[in-house]
């Protein structure tokens, strides 16, 4: 033995919880770099969506109130952004289910670290990955005719809202990841709720084209509000605005629903984390 007794760090200014969370986030980001295939495929799907919707369905979906040639593509891109960040939740689900299966969660739980740190690190890393995803998607969008029409400052706000939404669904995804018994189930359970969540929204078609009761669901769906807020901030066509409150105050409703969802799912996920063990 050459090293002496363990030397403990001074408490960092950011606090132990944040420190531990960043150590875990760093580890999750290293994973992203080491398995570029994973990132690649998580990019391919939205890019395919952009191309499909822009070239195949685009002409068949009229945007009320805007009949410009590239109207649908401009309408579409924020929808794809919203859908993509929502689907990022599945990565949190699968990632945590795998950590659990490998026994890493057991090991983290036996360390004297704060109990929210592993989930905080996971959700932060999964959100940061979306920065790269949104960049690639934006470039694809620009290539097919999408434009930022409302200034760079508003565009940054739009991206920040999208990332906040990504962070929110990452908590929901994490909670599911801790609930499911194995990674195989995780890859199904992590996706299944995202299809209705994203398709019962204004992401691809205007709410005004849906049957009455669906319009209500879609108008109160936070995916619709984050997508609408992004359209407004990017200066893209929004279709005929719905009169429902969330659609009248899209950005505010997005902030409120993210806060409420995090307030519900973060404690649920942390509580589950505290009592979970691998089999």
């Amino acid at each position, binding site marked *: 033995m050459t090293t002496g007794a363990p030397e403990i*760090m001074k408490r960092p200014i950011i606090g132990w919880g944040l420190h531990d969370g960043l150590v*875990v986030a760093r580890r999750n980001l290293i994973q992203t770099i080491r398995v570029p295939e994973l990132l690649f495929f998580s990019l391919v799907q939205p890019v395919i969506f952009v191309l499909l919707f822009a070239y195949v369905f685009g002409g068949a979906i009229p945007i009320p109130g805007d009949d410009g040639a590239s109207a649908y593509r401009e309408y579409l891109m924020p929808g794809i952004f919203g859908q993509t960040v929502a689907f990022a939740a599945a990565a949190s689900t699968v990632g945590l289910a795998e950590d659990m299966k490998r026994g890493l969660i057991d090991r983290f*739980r036996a360390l004297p670290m704060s109990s929210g740190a592993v989930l905080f690190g996971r959700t932060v890393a999964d959100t940061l990955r979306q920065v790269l995803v949104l960049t690639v998607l934006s470039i694809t969008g620009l290539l097919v005719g999408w434009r930022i029409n409302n200034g760079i400052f508003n565009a940054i706000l739009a991206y920040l809202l999208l990332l906040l939404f990504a962070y929110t669904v990452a908590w929901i995804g994490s909670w599911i990841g801790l609930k499911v018994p194995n990674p195989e189930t995780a890859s199904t359970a992590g996706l299944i709720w995202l299809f209705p969540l994203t398709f019962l929204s204004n992401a691809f078609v205007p709410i005004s084209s849906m049957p009455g009761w669906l319009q209500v669901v879609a108008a109160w769906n936070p995916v619709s509000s984050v997508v609408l807020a992004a359209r407004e901030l990017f200066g893209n066509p929004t279709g005929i605005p719905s009169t429902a409150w969330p659609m009248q105050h899209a950005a505010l409703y997005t902030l409120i629903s993210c806060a409420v969802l995090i307030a519900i799912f973060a404690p649920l996920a942390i509580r589950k984390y505290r009592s979970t063990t691998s089999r």
Partner: protein
Amino acid sequence: MSDVIEASGLVKRYGEVVALDGLDLRVSEGTVLGLLGPNGAGKTTAVRVLATLLKPDAGTAKVAGHDVRTKPNAVRRSIGLTGQYAAVDEYLTGRENLRMFGGLYHLKPAYVKARTDELLERFDLTAAANRSLRTYSGGMRRRLDLAASLIAKPPILFLDEPTTGLDPRSRLGLWQVIRDLVAEGTTVLLTTQYLDEADQLANEIVVIDKGRVIAKGTADTLKDQIGGDRIEITIADVAKANSAAVALRSVSTGEVSIEDDRLSAPVSGGSTVLVDAIRALDAQDVAVTDLVLRRPTLDDVFLSLTGHAAEEDNSPPPPSRRRGRGQ
């Protein structure tokens, strides 16, 4: 010496299954306790309760003087845990894994760096230190796993079947590491299904089955408990097994066990018993191809305590195994 692990009356249920059924354990400082039991005996559950991962349904446990229920973080500061399956990050390199755990133990970066190099060296992983774990063999992973739990030099170490799945050489290597740690003052609770492992490493052995302690003591006291030496014979004609059993029973001090053409029975009285056995077998007209007197192994202990061998599952014994009753 004081007890650094003390558990009493631990109960843990999973629905219908009672994984721990009033388990009592004590480990004194600087010693190795071998927790021995077959699959499903409750070894992992016991370790998880003591390492604060599971809350027991009943009973109390103190580790390093802290209650696992009410002071889990204090317990966590004193323990290292190596689970039954290597729990390390597949995508990180060996060095990155150790650094991550060092960071999570809140060790100073410079200390983590020095300690990481030291552990990599000690576990013979220096050459592979900068490779992702996906390129590691099972044995390398287990070594890194153990290294990770040593990063903060915990005074108490839980090792859940540390050598399962290792080849004999890696197994001996790991045994040596454990011996060195104990020589440095570490207290170890080790679970195993391998009786020779407990025999080799543990100062004290606790045998559990179905969540309860069925025997404890040193390897020697456990061996004595089943009557010391055993006579083992192989008979030429399997059809004579019953006659052979009758013969052995007349010289044995306990239960005769029969497995096809092999029989064994506990005896006392040293080598004269061999002569008696040969006479008795001869009287029963049983031809013997092999006959030995051997010191009992913990396998025998296990068999006599639980009615089934240690490495076998909890399933009923196969039909070919019949047991004679003792006199």
